[in-house]
């Protein structure tokens, strides 16, 4: 499995999509600060506020990094070379999640540092910073699992892009609907928004359990979609 992990990191490092989307995300996130800075307490939270909106970029990344692997049949070459399907899925998930986290969290880090250095802002979380940081990490990971699931079910670029994108807009719609409060606290995307707005009551445990459930359920379906079916 370590060889597979090394190979996937080599691919990620040489992926123009990763660097391109990462850079674009940083630029877009910085521009969106103009709007979100007024909604939140500081630059870091303003950047965090933008993450749910920038979720669509991880959907694009999933299509290009995972969906493309299926379309070019490169993922299959691992299996033909004797790698276990479960290992292939795990490694791909791990590297994809790390990549998504880097893409989404990089602006957060830069904006947070900028706020700290140039505006003299504190991180500004209510409650322990460590727990909030872990919450952000888990929320982002749970949020990015959805495109991954569809890439392993559809195994192409087109549907991996379109279906999660439709769900993305649906989630935004639901988060602004009648049961917004409930939906927002259940969806990782909404949880991030609540964290950025520091809206009470925020139960870290409930958030964490919900996110881990999302990760587990989506990974479970991806496993059965990939490990038990014939590949083209």
């Amino acid at each position, binding site marked *: 499995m370590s060889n597979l992990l090394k190979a996937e990191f*080599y691919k990620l490092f040489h992926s123009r999509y990763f660097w391109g989307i990462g850079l674009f995300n940083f630029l877009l996130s910085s521009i969106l600060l103009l709007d979100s800075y007024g909604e939140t307490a500081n630059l870091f939270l303003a950047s965090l506020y933008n993450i749910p909106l920038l979720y669509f970029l991880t959907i694009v990344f999933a299509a290009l990094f995972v969906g493309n692997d299926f379309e*070019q049949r490169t993922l299959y070459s691992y299996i*033909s070379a*004797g790698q276990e399907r479960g290992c292939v899925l795990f490694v791909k998930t791990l590297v994809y999640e790390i990549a998504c986290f880097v893409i989404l969290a990089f602006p957060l880090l830069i904006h947070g540092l900028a706020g700290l250095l140039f505006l003299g802002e504190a991180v500004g979380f209510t409650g322990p910073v460590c727990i909030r940081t872990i919450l952000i990490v888990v929320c982002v990971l749970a949020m990015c699992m959805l495109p991954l699931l569809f890439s392993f079910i559809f195994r192409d670029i087109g549907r991996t892009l379109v279906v999660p994108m439709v769900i993305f807009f649906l989630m935004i719609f639901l988060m602004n609907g009648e049961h917004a409060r409930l939906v927002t606290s259940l969806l990782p995307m909404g949880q991030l928004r609540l964290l950025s707005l520091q809206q009470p009551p925020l139960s870290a445990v409930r958030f964490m359990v919900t996110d881990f459930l999302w990760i587990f359920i989506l990974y479970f379906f991806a496993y059965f979609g990939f490990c038990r079916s014939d590949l083209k």
Partner: protein
Amino acid sequence: MGSVILEAQELTKEYRHAIALDHINLQIEKGKIYGFIGRNGAGKTTFLRLVTGLAFPSGGTLALWGKTGMAKLQEQRKRIGCMIETPALFPAMTAYQNMEVQRIQRGIPDKAIIDKTLEMVGLKDTGRKSVRNFSLGMRQRLGIAIALLNTPEFLILDEPVNGLDPAGIVEVRNLLKSLNKEYGMTILISSHILEELYQTASEFLLIDKGRIIEEISEHELNERCKRHIAIKTADVQKALLVLEEKLGTDHFMLVSDDTIRLYDYLNDVERVAAVLADAHILVTGLSISGDTLEDYFLGKIGGMKYVQSPES
């Protein structure tokens, strides 16, 4: 049993509406080059996908080096190199980077193997050119290079010469033959270019409608596609009579386009020509020829309507 690399017993693959493989039984022995022949949809690629772990069988057993069961089979697949259908390549990467990904995932410590393998397939000087700018033939060569990267004991190639120019076809043929000779590599090639396959393989597996219809060695095939003297003449009946009376043979056959196939006197064509000339028979064509693998295969699958039938 030690020399058997692959053994399929009653191997079956069913899809929702069709049976792709129908209780296949076959053995692939070490050190031989197998040609896998079949029409489109005959089940060749399905069989190769089962062997390489991309698909699961609906029934029967598959053994690689005597090992069966999903986990053990997967472990044995590390000894295989393959290219199924199209080469699996990262278009944005260079040839070297593509090879590097495969080298890392296979855990091959020696980086020099990449240059060596690229040189073997004639892709050493592609530099920083990304694969998306490669021609079809170059992609095919790279696919073969990836399959050869781990110096596999068993090499599986699906349409390896597809898109290659004539020189490339000869290079690949020579490469495969030398790998077989030097390393004792067992090779299974599926191809539609039967003439090419005939020149490369030593054993042939004929598949049709999901069933292996024949396993035949090169020697047996040559026997069956027997060489003969093809005599073309307008006066067929007289020629047949002369052949019987003057040459004392009835080992001939008349085929549909008034060509006589004479299976004797292959080393004495001049005498045949002289006898016919003495009898004042106008011969418009006289040459040594034989059935091709293509004719033989079409005959086997009942596709002879596309070619001249000796019996018709």
